[in-house]
């Protein structure tokens, strides 16, 4: 019924790797990728991250490509504009549309390629994190980064209840659909309003129940965060270093 990034992250084998290692790999990739002036470095990062996500993280390649397609679409659209309206240098090609002459020159082409490669590099880093690290693993990172406990606890509860209410919403929507609640615009609007108000009331009730549930287990203002220790393995450290060295070599070249 639902297809969330978080669900893929939960089943990824990379979930059980050291989270700080994953975060530094991603941060490294983002910084180097964005500050690189040659398209080769971001493309190399994109390739490595994509390989890691699909091969080590066991994300279905089809799903991964579909995921990449969305940001890539934006990047290509933007690049076309850049290609024809920015940059200088020798003319690469040109053609005429409705009497306007559109010219692409070397500088523009270079910039367009760079934009696309940076987008790919950056997105593949973000997807690596999103598809290998479910939200529940990130709470301990939030805790370490000294964010106030109440904010973290609130976000833990919110995370849990997102799914609960998502299920409720899906059920209500289904119940409305089978009784023809979504035929025609007027009825659809009416149904969706009903869904929203019911969901609001439900969440209010759920809050009451949550309070009772927590109290009956002696709640005294503490939610636990069990910090599981996941040491970095030698093979992971070696692989990461090799990746970092090649990337830096490409970067300073």
């Amino acid at each position, binding site marked *: 019924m639902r297809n969330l990034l978080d669900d893929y992250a939960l089943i990824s084998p990379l979930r059980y790797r050291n989270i700080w290692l994953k975060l530094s790999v991603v941060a490294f990739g983002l910084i180097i990728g964005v500050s690189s002036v040659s398209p080769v470095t971001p493309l190399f990062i994109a390739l490595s991250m994509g390989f890691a996500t699909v091969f080590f993280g066991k994300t279905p390649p089809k799903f991964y490509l579909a995921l990449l397609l969305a940001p890539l679409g934006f990047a290509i659209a933007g690049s076309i504009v850049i290609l024809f309206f920015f940059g200088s240098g020798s003319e690469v090609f040109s053609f005429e549309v409705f009497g306007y002459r559109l010219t692409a020159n070397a500088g523009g082409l270079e910039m367009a390629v760079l934009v696309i490669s940076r987008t790919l590099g950056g997105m593949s880093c973000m997807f690596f994190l999103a598809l290998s690290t479910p939200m*529940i693993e990130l709470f301990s990172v939030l805790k370490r980064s000294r964010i106030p406990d109440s904010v973290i606890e609130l976000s833990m509860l919110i995370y849990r209840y997102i799914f609960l209410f998502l299920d409720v919403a899906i059920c209500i929507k289904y119940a409305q659909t089978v009784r023809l609640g979504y035929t025609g615009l007027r009825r659809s609007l009416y149904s969706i309003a009903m869904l929203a108000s019911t969901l609001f009331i439900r969440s209010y009730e759920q809050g009451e129940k949550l309070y*009772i549930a927590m109290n009956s287990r002696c709640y005294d203002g503490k939610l636990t965060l069990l910090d599981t220790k996941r040491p970095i393995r030698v093979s992971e450290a070696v692989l990461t270093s090799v990746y970092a060295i090649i990337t830096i070599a490409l970067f300073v070249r």
Partner: protein
Amino acid sequence: MAILATCDLGYRYPDGTVAVKGVEIDVEAGKKTAFVGKNGSGKSTLFLLLNGTLKPNNGEIIFHGRPLEYDSRSLRELRRKIGIVFQNPDDQIFAPTVQQDVAFGPTNLGFSSEEVERSVNHALEYVGLAHLRDKPPHHLSGGEKKRVAIAGVIAMEPEVIILDEPLSNLDPVGADEIMDMLGELNHFNKTIIISTHDVDLAYGWSDYVYLMSDSRVIGEGTPDQVFSDPELLRKAGLRQPTTLEIYHEIERRGLAAGDRAPINVPELVDALKPPDLIWVRVPPETRKGDALNLGVMYGDYAHNCPYEAVNATVLHIHADGQAIVEMRRKGIRAGCIMIYDMGGYEPGEFQKIMTDYEIDAVGAMGKKSKKIAERDGIYLDVASGVIDKSILLALSGKRCLIITNGGMVGHALKRIRDYVEKSGIAINVGMIGAREG
């Protein structure tokens, strides 16, 4: 001794709805108590009163002989000792992972992090969910969620566990597993209180029953007392348990005899009068008063139950070679029930037991044992209602093996021995395997 009692307990919701009125109960320590009543009879409200969530308008709750105070320290103490499992596990599970939810209670009790980890491990192991510890609750099935909710309460090591409709939305096998687990907890001296509208469950499971209707307790007693009173059941809006209904019908037809009402299928079977007289086709030279040896009876006479009928007496010769014969029957092969502790499971030994003891049927109790059986391709003839089914199989001469582990071993042994004692039918029961004795 009563561990939890109430005295003229009454509660009215702020909108004026009376939910509990004049309730007096005495729940004994170490017993299984069921509150039975139709929807809206006040069971859930009563439970919220019992763990101090709601404060009664009048009357009081007495825990361990002392009236309940409503300051936060006493409430904390009470809630530590009385755990409550809600009907809908989604109302109870709020942490993002299974492990964190189970850890919630122990952390609140101020356990050190090692103690928290130990109690979480123990509780998850106990309900058979250790492998799902890192999962978020929305990835679990209904039965698994229920077990997480129970684990969250067990981890706090309460003396009393209250479960509101423990079997709602569970499939039969899942329901059976929960009930086995409750039996095991009870075996370790936990007081268990459940609410249900399932009369069959309350009748077969509980030691003591309260019938509730319209916010009041309208009847109480042992299950056979309460459920044998049709007038009371009608007032409560409930029906008779199926076992009891069948028993009353066959008793009325003179086919059953027993001094007490049977609470489960094996006891019902015991109550049946064996047919002493049967029609048999006899050789023409047979005379009245002759002794006939009918040999082993199969097929038309006795499906699936090999009985030897020797020295049957011919009482009457009918036309067409038919005769009425009085039988004295005896089982030709005594059935037995063996219990194997999967805690000491070893595939080689297990296979040897299967062949050496000529086991006919294997049943598994508990998630852990079922998992091992599935992994090692052990075929399970019985997967639900294991103890009752095994007794029935043993009664018809089969040799059964129950594989289980932990506290369920003792629980199963006790239940079968209780049956042997009550029915007077000697079934061989015992432990086998490395952990014998």
